[in-house]
């Protein structure tokens, strides 16, 4: 069997989830031929090497100016071209914004569907199963894809990167492509990087708030508590989007990834996009909704109103 991993670049490096996927497919599909596709402009030698070290035997590159920035149509064409070359059984990409944009498009052009945001993949005999958690991670939908070609995106953060990879230098296959005017109707303008003025990566304690905080002023108590504990505040995208706090504090798939000793999640429902950015030793959740997904991840928790609990916590710790 052949497997193709759609490799992605973030911050001038191979994006972590791509490496996690390579690790996972090498583990589950031991005797398969695992390849990666890598598109861009001025592709770096070190990216190709890294894909090889993490388990890609072949890397299919398309290095043209039109692929400098991700745009749907040129990437659909590029990935389709590589698929034609390899004829893989599984095409898998990390469920980043780009991965989720691309795979369903290429899939439907081949007349098939796409398994979405999987957190696991298994092979039992000839049967390949894809696991997608639904309903705030309360239930697991296990799905199969009929036909000879299977498109899959993973939930970000689902698979671990192998810390001691032992792969070798991959074979590099450069693929040619040409684009027409109609492939380039959507145009790249600019990328606005979130201003990271506070590095949350090294914070030992994080007091993070979600929609439940309720407003800009209500973030004050989180800041006070974080300050007493010698930590930082954090927030979900909803909060930074509503300008309750500066976007540098966003934690999750589209924000910073953190690994504190203690993470206090206040008024956070526990959406996968937020959770995927947290690897905390201890997670304490405070939420009025007992059914909130955050309690699935919490080591400790209080079902109650953060506006009452946090001031009490602050007061008792100060005493």
């Amino acid at each position: 069997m052949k497997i193709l991993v759609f490799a992605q670049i973030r911050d001038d490096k191979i994006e972590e989830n791509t490496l996690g996927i390579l690790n996972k497919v090498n583990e589950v599909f031991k005797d398969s031929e695992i390849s990666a596709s890598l598109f861009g402009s001025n592709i770096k030698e070190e990216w190709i090497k890294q894909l090889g070290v993490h388990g890609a035997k072949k890397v299919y590159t398309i290095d043209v100016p039109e692929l400098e920035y991700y745009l749907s149509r040129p990437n659909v064409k590029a990935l389709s071209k590589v698929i034609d070359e390899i004829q893989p059984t599984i095409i898998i990409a990390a469920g980043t914004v780009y991965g989720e944009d691309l795979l369903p498009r290429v899939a439907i052009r081949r007349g098939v569907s796409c398994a979405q945001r999987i957190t696991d993949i298994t092979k039992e005999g000839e049967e390949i199963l894809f696991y997608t958690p639904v309903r705030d991670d309360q239930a697991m939908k296990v799905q199969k894809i009929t036909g000879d070609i299977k498109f899959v995106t993973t939930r970000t953060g689902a698979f671990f990167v192998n810390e001691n990879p032992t792969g070798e230098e991959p074979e590099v296959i450069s693929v040619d492509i040409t684009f027409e005017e109609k492939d380039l109707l959507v145009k790249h303008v600019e990328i606005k990087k979130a201003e990271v003025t506070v590095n949350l990566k090294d914070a030992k304690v994080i007091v993070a708030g979600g929609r439940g905080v309720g407003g800009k002023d209500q973030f004050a108590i989180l800041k006070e508590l974080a300050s007493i504990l010698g930590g930082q505040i954090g927030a979900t995208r909803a909060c930074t989007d509503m300008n309750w706090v500066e976007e540098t504090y966003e934690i999750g798939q589209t924000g910073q990834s953190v690994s504190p000793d203690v993470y206090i999640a206040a008024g956070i429902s526990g959406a996968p996009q937020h959770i995927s950015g947290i690897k905390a030793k201890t997670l304490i959740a405070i939420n009025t909704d007992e059914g909130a997904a955050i309690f699935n991840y919490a080591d400790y928790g209080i079902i109650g109103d953060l506006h009452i609990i946090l001031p009490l916590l602050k007061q008792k710790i100060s005493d």
Partner: protein
Amino acid sequence: MKIIVFIRQIVNPQVKLQGVDYFDTSRISEDDLIINPFDKNALEGALKLKDSESAEVTAICVGGIKPSKAVREAIAMGCNDAVEVVDDNYYLEDPMILAKIYSKIVEKIGDVDLIFTGCEEQSSSSYAVPAMLAELLDIPSVLYAEEIEKTVDRFRISHVLEGGRKIVEMPMRGLISCTDSQYFVPRYTSMRGILTSKRAQIPQWSNEDLKLDEATVCENAASLTVSSFSNIVIEKDSYILKEEEPDEMVDKLLAKLKEDNIKLGV
């Protein structure tokens, strides 16, 4: 400018049904049914263009337990008209099939300039339909939009991106999927809108109207099939306090953390 907004009706995620029970339609009452929140963001995106460009906005709801509730709410928000599409033979669990049905609807309505839809369906976490629809129709598209700005002859769209946001330009005919950003916060229904929606004649279409080859949209046509569906059992041994005085709960939490040797501060 002619705009279509595809909306889906889902069970309110706030309902007290956990895990697979949430998907058991026999346990649902009409009050529990809402428009998929991201689709309401899409309605807002379309209605902003109705306000500024006098666009004509049609809301379409395919499937759902009581789609009439969803489409009437869409009209109450300000859509010009709406259509319900119901056919028991349609298998809507596979995003590919839903995209095929949407594509046929766009074709039937004709001369559509813009298509709006939510970036994903909450609870089922299905995000693939907008991308698939754009490909079937072979039109430009931008997904996960956060903000739309109209320039002379194009849309300048900001969309979500890991570590920030990205800005692209798209021709004025195409598809946009919307996130729950500040820009797309849905408006409330007005009293006048509610009255209009009560009087509105809402066409109901089935496959007799769409004339899709049934073999391509029924359950047998699905390429994504469910092999099992069950509750996730959390084996995590967590210490969760509830239904006590806040003061007592905080004391107990701090005592337990101390007992477990967990230091709260640095």
